[in-house]
């Protein structure tokens, strides 16, 4: 990223941050009376963002901020009244702007904003014309009215409508000090009410001096003001005061106003980082709870069933339940419907397919499926990769499709659904499918497998996830660039999920991304291999078995075990990591993975389940394969968490004599 771009991003982020807090302020105050300066500041923030993004040639952001500036202009001119809908709309669009800016910082191409612009335009038209302003005729001198901008005129009317007095303070300053003096006067006036306009004048002002007429609205009477403002003050419109009547009338509405002060919205917006911090704290508490539980068990062992021991046990159980509840609640807060992501992707499909001249229909299912906000954001890029891949290489040109007897428009289907503790997201196209033969040739050429190795299609197609393996050459439609699917796979693996692909010649390709519903604290099975202990996430396993070594067979270099009549490839974890293992006739096995990717991990001992908080291994151990991270389990013991996906990958191919690069 170059320096000027960084500068833009910094400035844009600052402006968006400011806009966010201004909008929050508007939300908090709109029922009780918004400070017009707040509205104006938001208007100006959008105005500035428009200017800055325009300078960098970022059309999407420029157009969007311009549209929002126009919207805010209507708000500040009183043409649109602020209500919950307006605030929600502002928040939504600030989010969109933020996404656009994020896109720039991630070097993504700018999204098409046409839909957003239409939304803003129609929203503006819907909301408009609610404000009703009184006239100023015969109240304010026309010679003053003519120098007011539309905004100032609106503010003047608003002050009159509220029954405030409108005054004109007149000051004359020497030219060499007028800036400081005017600043001081402005401050004094703002403390008394709202400064509507500052009118410089040179009539009746001696040479070397400059005069200012400051128009302001205030609740105070002329007498009160004169004590504070040390200049001539004219009353343009008297404060509407009928002291007795006012007070009587004021007493009643006061109560109503109190209830109005309370915002009708009960929503708060929270930075995801704050929720992360809460989860971290819960993680630490979970460890502490584990310690209490362990102490309980140790006490029971030493002192038997004493009532104090029983209490400790009860408290540990209660802690466990409450912590689990708390964790569930926080995780629930973090959940967002995947539809949010889908709608962003639909923009890309529309724009990108138009760009390269393919007609593509987008179908979406399961938009309500919920996913952790962090995961949802992280999965956008991989999904975008896959979609672009489908548009580039999957879907054929329309004449080609016609020749095959297919529908002229291609279809991309995005589908999300929950399966156990996982969310599955499918990206399906009805294009040409992947040419398996080419993938095989390429794999041999790249020495990923030996020429004579026999692999079934499902195994061959997995090679498209190998680093440096371009899809460009292996899909039927040879066009454009190949997208690195290895990046997709790596990302999924980092998120604790995995990517799979199904393809059929001339029918299409489906990528299936499997993700855990949430990150953070997970349940794991603690196992022993030789002298080492490891954690296996429960989300990735389906069952545990006791396996008689005699029943393990070797078929085509694979060690397999027949589980209920189905062949299950076995991995000796000890062998994988070069560890010792117990000698004996039987071992335990943990069945991990799903469907075609199901394997059994042979281990020496099972220790039972425990909640763990996975911490990353950091950069030092990045190159070590097979571990998803580390976790602390009681008594400050740290163990490694197995990355079952890597184990499955490595073994499925390695066992067939393939050499992974």
């Amino acid at each position, binding site marked *: 990223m170059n320096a000027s771009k960084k500068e833009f991003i910094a400035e844009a982020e600052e402006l968006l941050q400011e806009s966010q807090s201004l909008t929050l302020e508007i939300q908090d105050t709109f029922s009780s009376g918004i400070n017009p300066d707040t509205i104006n500041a938001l208007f100006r923030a959008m105005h500035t963002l428009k200017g800055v993004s325009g300078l960098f040639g970022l059309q999407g952001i420029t157009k969007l901020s311009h549209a929002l500036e126009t919207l805010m202009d209507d708000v500040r001119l009183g043409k649109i009244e602020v209500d919950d809908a307006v605030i929600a709309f502002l928040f939504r669009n600030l989010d969109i702007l933020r996404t656009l800016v994020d896109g720039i910082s991630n070097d993504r191409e700018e999204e098409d904003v046409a839909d957003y612009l239409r939304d803003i335009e129609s929203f503006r038209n819907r909301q408009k014309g609610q404000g009703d302003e009184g006239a100023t005729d015969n109240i304010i001198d026309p010679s003053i009215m003519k120098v007011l901008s539309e905004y100032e005129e609106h503010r003047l009317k608003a002050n009159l409508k509220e029954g405030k007095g409108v005054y004109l303070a007149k000051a004359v300053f020497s030219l060499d000090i007028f800036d400081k003096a005017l600043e001081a006067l402005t401050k004094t006036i703002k403390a008394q009410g709202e400064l509507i306009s500052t009118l*410089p004048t040179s009539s009746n002002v001696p040479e070397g001096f400059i005069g200012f007429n400051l128009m302001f609205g205030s609740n105070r009477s002329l007498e009160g003001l004169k004590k504070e403002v040390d200049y001539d003050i004219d009353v343009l419109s008297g404060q509407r005061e009928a002291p007795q009547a006012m007070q009587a009338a004021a007493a009643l509405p006061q109560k109503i106003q109190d209830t109005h002060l309370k915002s009708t919205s009960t929503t708060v917006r929270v930075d995801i980082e704050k929720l992360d911090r809460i989860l971290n704290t819960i993680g630490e508490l979970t460890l502490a709870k584990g310690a209490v539980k362990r102490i309980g068990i140790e006490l029971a062992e030493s002192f038997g069933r004493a009532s104090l021991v029983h209490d400790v046990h009860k408290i540990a159980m209660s802690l466990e339940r409450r912590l689990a509840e708390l964790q569930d609640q926080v995780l629930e807060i973090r959940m967002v419907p995947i539809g949010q992501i889908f709608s962003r992707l639909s923009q890309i499909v529309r724009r990108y397919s138009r760009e390269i001249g393919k007609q593509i229909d987008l179908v979406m299912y399961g938009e309500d499926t919920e996913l952790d906000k962090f995961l949802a954001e992280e999965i956008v890029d991989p999904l975008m990769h896959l979609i672009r891949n489908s548009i580039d290489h999957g879907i054929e040109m329309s004449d080609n499709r016609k020749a095959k007897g297919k529908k002229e428009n291609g279809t991309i289907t995005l589908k999300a659904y929950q399966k156990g503790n996982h969310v599955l997201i499918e990206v399906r196209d009805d294009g040409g499918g992947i040419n398996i033969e080419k993938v095989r040739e390429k794999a041999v050429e790249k020495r990923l497998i030996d020429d004579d190795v026999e692999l079934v299609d499902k195994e061959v197609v997995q090679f498209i996830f190998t680093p440096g393996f371009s899809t460009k050459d292996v899909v039927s439609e040879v066009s454009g660039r190949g997208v690195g699917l290895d990046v997709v796979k790596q990302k999924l693996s980092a998120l604790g999920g995995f990517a799979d692909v199904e393809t059929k010649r001339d029918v299409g390709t489906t990528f299936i991304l499997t993700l855990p519903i949430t990150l953070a604290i997970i349940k794991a099975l603690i196992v022993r291999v030789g002298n080492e202990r490891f954690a296996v996430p429960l989300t990735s396993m389906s069952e545990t078995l006791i396996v008689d070594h005699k029943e393990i067979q070797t078929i085509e270099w694979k060690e397999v075990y027949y589980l209920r009549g189905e062949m299950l490839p076995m991995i000796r974890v000890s062998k994988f990591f070069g560890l010792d293992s117990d000698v004996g006739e039987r071992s335990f096995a943990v069945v991990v993975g799903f469907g075609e990717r199901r394997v059994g991990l042979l281990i020496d001992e099972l220790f039972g389940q425990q909640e763990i908080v996975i911490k990353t291994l950091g950069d030092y151990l990045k190159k070590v394969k097979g571990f998803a991270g580390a976790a602390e389990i009681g008594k400050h013991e740290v163990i490694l968490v197995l990355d079952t996906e890597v184990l499955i990958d490595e073994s499925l191919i390695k066992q067939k004599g393939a050499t992974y690069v």
Partner: protein
Amino acid sequence: MKTILIVEDSATTRALIRAVIDELGEFETVEASSGFEALKILPQQEYDLIITDINMPDINGLELINFVRNNPRYKQIPIIIVSTERSEEDKKRGMALGATAYVTKPFKSSELQEIIQKTIAS
């Protein structure tokens, strides 16, 4: 060389206007980031043209125009309003107060150059 005072609160637009003027190669420019700053700068030298925005914090363009037109020392200086299409009403008021011409943002550089040349010549 003739001097043009640019009054505009957006640094971007100010830079843009200056670039457009510099392209003509015939004028010096002085910049003010608000109406208030313009009032400070005005007495410092002679100006041949003022280009001003309307919507600015503190002293706005209309107030500035009114001030200039009512001050014997400055009242001959031609004024061009540069404002957005939304400020149609404000522009009308500016013209009524004695502005010489107006340009709507966003503008083409040739458009602004032409108006500057015309305004200064007349």
